[in-house]
């Protein structure tokens, strides 16, 4: 991350993410299996914290009032008899950065941050999703104050799992994840 007037630093952040995974779906006519399924999830809360010698304490959270989520999309159909164990996983969120030395919270404005990876299971414990581009960071007045150079998210462990009877995809989220 780069903050104008403060500098660049790599910040290791640790914490928790709570998300609601929706019922897997398969397209009409497709078998309902790992290869054909679309699996989506909605972010409920992201809270990670770390320390930087340049920025001080940094706390990152998501933006619940914006449409954020994750998606595992259908794999290319395997040839008969084959199994497709690997699928593409995309996370889309609007991170907010509370930067101690800056004394305020910055974010990426209206630009959603995309992190991608390949997964062989859900939830993807051990997965590391990464960005491929940088994102401008803005203060509360819309002024650019820095840049998110790169972000990597590692899912360390599944802490708790609560089955829900049914979790359907909100329409706005479905549009984002399509």
């Amino acid at each position: 991350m780069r903050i104008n007037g403060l500098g660049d630093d790599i910040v290791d952040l640790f914490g928790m993410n709570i998300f609601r995974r929706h019922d897997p779906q398969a397209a009409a006519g497709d078998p309902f299996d790992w290869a054909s399924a679309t699996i989506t999830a909605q972010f409920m809360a992201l809270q990670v914290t770390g320390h930087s010698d340049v920025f001080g304490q940094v706390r990152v959270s998501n933006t619940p009032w914006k449409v954020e989520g994750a998606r595992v999309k259908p794999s290319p159909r395997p040839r008969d008899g084959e199994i497709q164990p690997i699928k593409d996983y995309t996370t889309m969120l609007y991170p907010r950065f509370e930067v101690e030395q800056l004394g305020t919270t910055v974010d990426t404005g209206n630009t959603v941050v995309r992190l991608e990876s390949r997964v062989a299971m859900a939830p993807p414990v051990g997965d590391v999703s990464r960005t491929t581009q940088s994102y401008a960071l803005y203060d509360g007045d819309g002024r650019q104050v820095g840049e998110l150079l790169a972000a990597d998210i590692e899912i360390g462990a599944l802490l708790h799992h609560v089955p829900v009877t049914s979790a359907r995809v909100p329409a706005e989220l479905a549009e984002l994840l399509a």
Partner: protein
Amino acid sequence: MTIAESPLSALPRDLHSLLTEYRQTILPTAQAYLGSKVSANQLRGQWKPYYFGSFHSYAITVERAWREATGTDGSLESGAPWADPVYEVPLKHFPVCVAHNNLDRLVEVLAAELGEQTADKAEIQERTGDLAQTVEALDSLMESLAEQPATP
């Protein structure tokens, strides 16, 4: 793995073959990349045939071993699996697949950032460090599993 052979029993041998190719192809290329002797695109060029070839075959064996151990047919089931010793062998190999998938994404982002440039030109040095650690850790993990027998 022959058609008649159980995927559970084939896993250690398949992994040994994968490890052999990994050490012959990926390790030297990764070391050359980390020493800025080859570009990110060249690293990707060596990685992709291995990932979509030998590793994909191994990943299918892991998947088949899971299905053999659990009796599932690949259909999606709700809830977490029960704790059961029958899962032990395929679950031991899941981290190999996770690490390969993570490496694939890492190689992709390195190529996206650098293209024909070498590691010393990387702005995000953290990811260069990730590559060094992951390549070495994956080698150790595969070596430990390749020596273990298939049955618990």
